[in-house]
């Protein structure tokens, strides 16, 4: 993979010869995308921001309620459960996916026969959509669990580990590709030098390969993290939040429900009475995901400076 680094050459941007006639054609070059961007992103985004402070069922009829929605969202036991469940899931899947992907990438760059074929196979699950993936794995996991007289939707831990297995199957191939690109970018002289200095393969891995792989490791870490946080389709198809828990006097907690699904349910179940709270949850969710993205941007920039 070639990570693109734009060449910052101000002169190349300022060709009057092109700029003047191009400007006159803004309506044909820029307008279609910008108009669609307003309809498909900007307007819904700001309207959503605004509505998170309102009580509403449909977007046209609303009453301003201030921060009530946010207070309700943070007080919602199912939301905080979904948050911790998602965080836990993100952490565990991050570890599994990256360790597996790195190991596979490392093994497949040792020059063994059939590497290309193996790479193709490992990458394949990436092309299958989340809904379909969920139902494939619910069939397989239920087929196993039925022998022990239980089922995927009966216990939280089955749903949790089932989703981990599913995500590993889907994402190891993707991360492997990024790691392979990183490994191939390490100059052979480095490895040669390490070998001449008498470093064994473990020492080479630890002191030479991994430090040089830090940019790839950062990218993959954040990719797996955001993927887990934004996970929706797989979660919906595999367990849809089951099993449900009904604590005495409290509201129903869907024990395998992740953040995105929790927000979705706040909007579309309960007759639409919680849409304001759902929108407030969505804003919190957005800030969370954006923060992870920003940290990623910062940390990759820092790495670039060091190199």
């Amino acid at each position: 993979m070639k990570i693109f680094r734009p060449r910052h050459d101000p002169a190349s941007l300022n060709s009057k010869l092109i700029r003047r006639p191009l400007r006159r054609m803004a309506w044909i070059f820029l307008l279609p995308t910008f108009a669609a961007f307003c309809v498909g992103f900007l307007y819904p985004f700001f309207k959503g921001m605004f509505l998170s402070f309102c009580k509403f069922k449909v977007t046209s009829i609303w009453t301003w309620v201030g921060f009530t929605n946010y207070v309700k969202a943070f007080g919602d036991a199912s939301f905080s459960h979904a948050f911790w469940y998602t965080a836990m899931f993100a952490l565990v899947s991050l570890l599994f996916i990256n360790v597996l992907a790195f190991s596979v990438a490392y093994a497949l760059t040792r020059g063994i026969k059939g590497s290309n074929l193996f790479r193709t196979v490992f990458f394949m699950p990436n092309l299958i959509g989340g809904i379909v993936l969920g139902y494939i794995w619910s069939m397989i996991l239920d087929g196993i669990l039925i022998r022990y007289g239980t089922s995927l939707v009966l216990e939280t831990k089955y749903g949790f580990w089932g989703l981990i297995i599913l995500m590993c199957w889907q994402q190891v191939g993707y991360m492997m590709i990024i790691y392979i690109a990183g490994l191939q970018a390490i100059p052979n002289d480095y490895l040669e030098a390490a070998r001449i200095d008498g470093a064994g393969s473990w020492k080479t891995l630890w002191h030479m390969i991994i430090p040089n792989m830090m940019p790839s490791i950062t990218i993959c870490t954040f990719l797996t993290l955001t993927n887990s946080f934004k996970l929706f389709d797989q979660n919906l198809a595999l367990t849809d939040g089951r099993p449900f828990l009904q604590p005495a006097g409290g509201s129903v907690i869907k024990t395998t429900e992740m953040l995105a699904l929790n927000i979705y349910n706040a909007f579309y179940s309960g007759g639409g009475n919680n849409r304001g709270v759902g929108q407030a949850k969505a804003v919190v969710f957005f800030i969370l995901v954006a923060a992870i993205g920003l940290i990623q941007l910062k940390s990759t920039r820092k790495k670039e400076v060091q190199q």
Partner: protein
Amino acid sequence: MIASHGTRLREKHKKMAMTLAFAVICLIYIMPVALVLLNSFKANAYVNTETFKLPTSESFVGFRNYIKGMTFGNYPFLKAAFYSFVITVASSALVLLCTSMAAWYISRVGSAFCKMVYYLCVFSMVVPFQMVMFTLAKTADTLNLNTPWTIPVIYLGFGAGLSVFMFCGFVKSIPVEIEEAAMIDGCNPLQTFFKVVLPIMKPTYISVGILEVMWIWNDYLLPYLVLDRTKYMTIPILIQYLKGSYGTVDLGATMALILLTILPVIIVYIFCQKYIIKGVAAGAVKG
């Protein structure tokens, strides 16, 4: 350093063992797909109890699952496949054409407004869909963008960020002198774009195109919320509808549908895997 004959031989054996081990792992890795194929030939009752067994004379139903799957849930599968296809092709084509033109404009004009649009696009990449889904669905409804023929506009709007970002990255690496030469030779901006810039950007078109196709073909929530579901379903919507809310589910028929869904994808993948892997990896920057 010259390795002795013995070390080299040991090295060779080690590599053979690795190849063998990976062959086994790969076989296990494609098991889920093989299981879908296997179970698509079994009667409903046997999918759950005999998931890992080959179909027996008792459980084997031939192609009955496939025939049943075609009209399963009172919605023809081929209709859903057709809408999926239309939406994917039309949206990807629209996104590629419009965002590449916009990216060229943004990079070459470079005014304050262009910069603002660019940063808004980058910003939109970190916004999760849940943030806009309710208002977006409502907006699409009001503007009649809720049919397979008009939903490409929504995809262009919501998906513009990543592709504008990727195209801008590439445009900056094209020497502006090439375009200047075309302009001096009498091209107008449109001609310059289609005759000079577009051919140079071909690799980026392939990368972005693959990303868009994979995203839109597999997308569930956006079309589910935006489309008028009484009339239009895509494949993911149909499968979720069958499994999620359609009462008693025929697992065998569902597996048949799932196989029909992933088979074309896998066939395309086998023929263009080089481009697909490269394209997807190029999108890793999106974070």
